[in-house]
């Protein structure tokens, strides 16, 4: 799970163009949206694409994103359980 969390941090920085954020800046349980990393609605949509592209998970209901993308921890748990790639 640790490797996956690292991988997710790297991907988020790259895919969402978080230029000034380093891996060490993202804690596993920090909120990704709102106050934490300050991601927005377009970032959420990009993460949905990333779930599909990199892990083969198609979100049937995009509203599920709210809970899945809460933090690196919740993302890693969800992907571990549902990945097809």
């Amino acid at each position, binding site marked *: 799970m640790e490797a996956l969390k690292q991988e997710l941090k790297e991907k988020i920085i790259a895919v969402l163009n978080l230029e000034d954020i380093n891996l060490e800046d993202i804690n596993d349980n920090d909120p990704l949206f709102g106050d934490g990393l300050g991601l927005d609605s377009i970032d959420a*949509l990009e993460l949905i694409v990333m779930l599909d592209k990199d892990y083969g998970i198609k979100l049937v209901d995009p509203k599920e994103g709210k809970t899945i993308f809460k933090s690196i921890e919740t993302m890693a748990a969800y992907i571990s359980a549902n990945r097809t790639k």
Partner: protein
Amino acid sequence: MIENKTYIKSFCTIQNNEIILNGETIFKTEPTLFADFSKKAFRNFEIDYPKFFKMDNLSKLAFLGAELLLKNEIDNTKENNIALVFSNSSSSLDTDVKYQKSISDKDNYFPSPAVFVYTLPNICLGEISIRHQLRSENSFFIFEDFNPAFMKNYANVLLETKKAEKVLCGWVEYFGEEYQAFLYLVASEGNTEHRKETLEILYNKHSWKH
């Protein structure tokens, strides 16, 4: 319509790895790709705005020019009624081509919302509005070349009918590493008269086309 005189308060040009403000070069790099040039410019002017890196090239170009001209114009204690009237030749085609590529391989089909949102030229106006909290008149026009007669008339009518107190005008063109931004602020006071001929001179002086 009786016209009150209007003036060009300030102007800048961004092209060929160089930024010229009111006729003086204020930033220059060795020849490099726009992504690198714009990042270096961003750092050089110590702009604190991480969202810059999410923008497409057209928006980055427009954003940088606006940043320089609006820095000393914005009064944070009140509403700033500065209209944005921008134009270019390629619309958002640079990003459109990028987005089209992302949907052309049916076996690797992952349309990106973050790219798609920039496939409209007026998004750069939105970025500038958000950055400077400008709730003002916005419009984006497409012409084959910079059209000083049109721009002069349109900016003036906004000022004359009091739809705006100042107008930030721009020719912001970006396509395939060829970029040119010519931005200028029109107001009821300034050193240079806001006339079609003046605009032509200022534009041509620094245009890479000539």
